[in-house]
């Protein structure tokens, strides 16, 4: 792999067919919608969002990439690194997310809260408070 080129992730979240309203990501995370490809009936096929320069997409589910609704859970949890964990979790709840795990400061140095978005995807909202605690935790594990 070319060391000069910095690779990036673009997570693609499968969502159910027939979804029209995807304002959640703007309201919850301040995401900017880059583009959106609709089905003829106006429901979402693919949509790209940007959060501070980092892209993610929603994609209508396929047979091998089911939505969490169809699959009955998620296979990937995405952590979103923010400054004010409490504020982002609160805003996400107001925007329609479900609280999975309230914001706590963990012994491994992270402040984390977990939410499930209206389409079933799990997000860990987090901030590394104490890198030394993480290093110690890893060393002593």
């Amino acid at each position, binding site marked *: 792999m070319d060391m000069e080129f910095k690779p990036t992730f673009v997570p693609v979240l499968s969502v159910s067919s027939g979804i029209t309203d995807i304002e959640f990501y703007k309201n919850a995370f301040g995401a900017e919608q880059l583009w959106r490809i609709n089905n003829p009936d106006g429901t979402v096929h693919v949509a790209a969002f940007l*959060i501070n320069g980092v892209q993610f997409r929603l994609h209508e589910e396929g047979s091998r990439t089911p939505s969490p609704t169809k699959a009955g859970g998620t296979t990937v949890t995405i952590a979103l*690194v923010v400054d004010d964990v409490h504020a*982002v979790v609160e805003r996400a709840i107001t925007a329609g997310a479900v609280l999975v795990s309230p914001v706590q400061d963990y012994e491994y140095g992270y402040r984390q809260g977990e939410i499930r978005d209206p389409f079933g995807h799990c997000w860990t909202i987090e901030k590394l408070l104490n890198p030394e605690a993480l290093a110690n935790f890893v060393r002593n594990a």
Partner: protein
Amino acid sequence: MEKPGAAFLPTLSVRRGAAAVEFYKKAFNAEVLFCLTDPDGGVVAELSIHGVRFLVADEAPEYENFSPETLGGSTVRMGLVVSDPDLVAKQAVAAGAEEIYPVADQDYGYRLGRIKDPFGHHWEICRKL
């Protein structure tokens, strides 16, 4: 309004976490930043692909973390933007991934192919054209 940081840190739930870590090392030249092992052999590991970080963890259905094998599919696929998608996809297949479709120039402006890793996660290896 809160200004979120620029980082996503995905956690991929798998069965056979220790083997998965070995696969990602071979397939993507991932570097292991840390790897915690439970007494029962389960792992939580943080990996870096040239600075792109992600975690791999053995599934924990009691916490609603499911592997693609358990759910029969993957609810998030990982777009991985690299300089040479042909090379990276080839290396992943050599390490044991299954090609879903080959790397090719797509009409939406990406050179992109898709693979499924041995643990059921789908990766779209790509570069913007």
